[in-house]
């Protein structure tokens, strides 16, 4: 059996090679190596974390933050004043780390959803995951069993996902458009149910607490929030990264992916369930924070290109940095009052989205 790539003569290949090199130099978009992107991203993230912890009503220096952290992990003597140490270790560090993990998780979840549904507007919200998680979380908040909140948020996200996919498959195949439309319906239903629960049961303080949580807030972050968010991120992030090639295969749709050896149904269900797990964990610790999952994957793919092995880690790092700064703004700009961080991400996200939309005109999104 002649091999197709053995078909053309050797001279064709030799002739073609220089043209490729020349063409790549002249026209290829700037695509820095992955190691450079990840290295830069990690460096920016570390600096971001250290600086963000110093910002707030009590003035701290970066050196103090570093010494406090090193003391807590047992690498040096504790020599930071007790109050400052407590501010770093008990208040700000858990919050900043939670913001980083949530930002990374939302960006990764958004990127995966956009590929699986082949819809550039997909994010966890669009498929009803966040609304479902919110419903679960609000239900346990008003019942006064806050300890169950992560479990309830996750269960809500999973239920919403199942409802969305079931609705999208009714009387037809699961196409991206149907998935988005079904997600909208499920979102609306979950939001209505959430409103009903609040309207029926909430009073005064708990109302305000719930509202701030629905708009997204990291104010309640503790070390257990860090554990939940970072744990979900590490587990889901690793699996998703290993499946990066399979996500690439979806570019031309389900049949093309199947022809490239991907088990389309299993991959889609597994990935969507993982995204539900991730989203449930994120919503459990921070409420519903918009625009990070929608906008960041697009912005990042301008630099990384669409290959998921490059896109996913860089989007995660960018999401972490972005949300840490957005949360820092949210808690300091109107000090002592806090803005829900979801308002800040919307204020940043909408203009970025507008710019991307202009860039994409006539291209990707036409």
């Amino acid at each position: 059996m002649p091999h197709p790539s053995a078909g053309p003569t050797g001279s064709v290949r030799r002739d073609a090679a220089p043209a490729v090199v020349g063409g790549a130099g002249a026209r290829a978009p700037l695509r820095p190596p992955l190691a450079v992107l990840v290295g830069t991203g990690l460096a920016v993230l570390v600096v971001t974390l250290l600086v963000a912890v110093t910002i707030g009503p009590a003035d701290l220096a970066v050196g103090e933050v570093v010494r406090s952290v090193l003391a807590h992990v047992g690498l040096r003597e504790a020599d930071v004043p007790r109050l400052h140490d407590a501010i770093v270790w008990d208040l700000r560090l858990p919050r900043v780390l939670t913001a980083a993990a949530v930002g990374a998780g939302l960006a990764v979840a958004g990127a995966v959803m956009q590929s699986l549904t082949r819809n550039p507007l997909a994010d966890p919200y669009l498929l009803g995951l966040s609304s479902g998680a919110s419903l679960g979380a609000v239900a346990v908040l008003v019942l006064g069993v806050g300890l169950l909140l992560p479990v309830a948020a996750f269960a809500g996200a999973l239920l919403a996902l199942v409802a969305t996919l079931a609705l999208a498959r009714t009387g037809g195949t699961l196409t991206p458009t149907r998935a988005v439309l079904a997600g909208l319906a499920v979102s609306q239903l979950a939001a209505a149910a959430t409103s009903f629960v609040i309207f029926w049961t909430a009073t005064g303080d708990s109302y305000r607490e719930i509202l701030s949580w629905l708009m997204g807030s990291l104010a309640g972050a503790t070390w257990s929030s860090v554990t939940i968010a970072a744990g979900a991120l590490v587990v889901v992030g690793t699996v998703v990264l290993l499946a990066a090639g399979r996500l690439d295969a979806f570019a031309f749709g389900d049949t093309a992916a199947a022809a490239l050896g991907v088990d389309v149904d299993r991959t889609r269900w597994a990935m969507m369930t993982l995204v539900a797990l991730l989203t449930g964990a994120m919503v459990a610790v921070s409420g519903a924070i918009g625009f990070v999952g929608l906008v960041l994957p697009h912005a990042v793919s301008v630099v990384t290109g669409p290959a998921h092995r490059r896109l996913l880690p860089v989007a995660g790092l960018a999401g972490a940095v972005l949300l840490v700064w957005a949360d820092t703004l949210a808690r300091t700009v109107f000090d002592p009052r806090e803005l829900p961080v979801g308002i800040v991400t919307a204020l940043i996200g909408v203009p970025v989205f507008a710019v991307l939309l202009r860039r994409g005109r006539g291209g990707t999104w036409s």
Partner: protein
Amino acid sequence: MELSIAGVGTRLGGRWVVDGVDATPPTGALTGLLGPNGAGKTTLLRLVAGLLEPQAGAVLVSDPGSHDPAAAVPVHALPRRVRARHVALLEQSSDAAVPLSVREVVALGRIPYRTLWGTDTDPGAVERALAAASATHLADRAWSTLSGGERQRVHIARALAQEPSLLLLDEPTNHLDVAAQLSMLAFVRDLRVTSVAALHDLNLAAAFCEHVLVLSAGRLAAAGPPAEVLTPALLRQVYGVDADVLTHPRTGRPVIALTGRSSDGSGPAG
């Protein structure tokens, strides 16, 4: 790769869309898959690609894991990755707006060859596939800026990157101008890879295919060399058209001159 379609059938919504098709397309040559709209061409291609499991019969291919050339396995029973290394399918041209460069599109064809870490086992394969499909000059263009003919050329390069020994094409000449249609089919024919192409244009099929299969309402109406199969009687029966079949003065291949819908009013079954 040797291909044998043995009594293959499948139902969609209770109707047999492909019904008891028996055929053995010649190895290392281009076979045309003909038939009116709705005759089951696309479904048959998907069955041959192993993407659909037949509800009757089987599609048998040479076993890629065996040294015995006569060993055959059902294509849908091959492990997915193994199958993707041997069988490539070009879908009916989709103008999907994907945010990829041409080189990235062709690299998709290497997914079955990627390691767990996403690196290609043969880093030169993408450039070779681009060169083989004469698409090297397009490599850095954005997919969304390509013309229909250029897209089809890149799809071919993507399929070649899979290094297939069985190539399936669903209306590869759709949306192409005349010159591009000719060069597309000449290219596929000259690959000398076992290929099956669903085609609408009977004259293209007559000119480029060594063998044709004619489907009518899911059943095989005729199979064989174009000169034997494409007769006025068959065209009337399958397509419901009147035609004269001439012989090309230079190539000796059949040329179909259509004269109109058949006068007896008998239309195609579908």
